[in-house]
């Protein structure tokens, strides 16, 4: 390798290292703000004052969904295992919304610890399979809808 090429190689590697370090530091300090949602456990550790908007993510607790007699109101519990939060939402839910499914709700807590959602998004996991396979798995005792809420 000629000296000029060597010089260019070293200069480029230095630029790469510099940009790499800079972006690592930037992203490390941004980490908190880049979290798209808070889990119920995050909420228990660092409470968010009522009225402040944030996103709550977790699984819909099986058996917790109740629909209002009149209108589109729905109440359900979002859980991540150890902690849970009750959510109220008025509006049309996404097709994938069901018990055991991961959801992300945007809204704020009221004074009594009830999360009033203005938007509910369904989160699906990384498993894809035809219905027959899902049925076979269910029959053999696997829980297919075991999303970890991420």
């Amino acid at each position: 390798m000629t000296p000029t090429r060597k010089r260019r190689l070293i200069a480029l590697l230095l630029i790469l290292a510099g940009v790499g370090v800079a972006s690592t530091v930037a992203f490390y300090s941004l980490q908190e703000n880049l979290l798209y949602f808070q889990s119920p456990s995050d909420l228990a550790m660092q409470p968010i004052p009522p009225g402040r908007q944030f996103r709550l993510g977790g699984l819909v607790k099986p058996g917790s969904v109740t629909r209002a007699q009149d209108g589109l109101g729905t109440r359900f519990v979002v859980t991540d295992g150890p902690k849970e939060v009750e959510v109220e939402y008025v509006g049309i839910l996404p097709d994938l919304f069901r018990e055991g499914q991961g959801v992300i709700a945007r809204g704020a807590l009221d004074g009594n610890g009830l999360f009033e959602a203005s938007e509910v998004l369904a989160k699906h996991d990384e498993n894809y399979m035809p219905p027959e396979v899902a049925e076979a798995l269910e029959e053999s005792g696997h829980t297919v809808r075991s999303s970890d809420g991420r």
Partner: protein
Amino acid sequence: MNTNIAVKDKPRKNALVLFIHKLGSPPWFYDFTGKFIPWLWLIFVGLAAWALYLGLVRGPADYLQGESVRIIYLHVPAAWASLLIYASMAVMAFIALVWRIRIVEILAMCSAPIGAAFTIVTLTAGSLWGRPTWGTYWVWDARLTSELVLLFLYLGVIGLYNAIDEPRKAARAACLLAIVGAVNLPIIHYSVKWWNTLHQGSSVSLLGGSSIDASILWPMLIMAFAVKFYYLANLLTRARVRLLEQDLRKGWVKDVVREQRP
């Protein structure tokens, strides 16, 4: 760059090194690639048709998402291609900057529009997929945002290259941007691991296997493979045209034109 003349007084080079040096010569590159570009297109069309038949006609719907899961055959191969093309562009840009090989420079620059197109396909298909499954076209989570940044990086490289008149200077500036932008690649890949995102985690990893059923996985992998041939065919076609443009007044281009029109 060594030429064939230099080979005479040095000990004979091995065949691979000689081949790489030959590829650096515009007329040789032009002739050589012209021979197999049609085959690349043919392989791409064949594989893509096979993948689409398996995926759209023979394949099943998903247990949870139903028919909309079929967008996977477009979205995932395009997303992988958008990352892979950026990586290959950055590597070629690096080689171009250190060794100043003109053909590598052209190849790096011709990769950008193809990669940008795949990024747009990824974002559009993903957005249309998000509506029925998540309930929204777009959210600003880490995965979606970093993929959008990738599009802007591609557009930046294309823009910078076209903003400077002198092609070799332009390529040098754009190559540097391409290299610096490569820090975004690990961010996109690991975004679903490092942060809570609406986008789900990776389904397929090189070593860890896959959480996609084989009936959905195989058409997707075949499509991903097909897309690489599309990239190669499109890239080489673009590079040949760019070479002709840049060498318009050189002897070898006149020979090429003479051969085309006897």
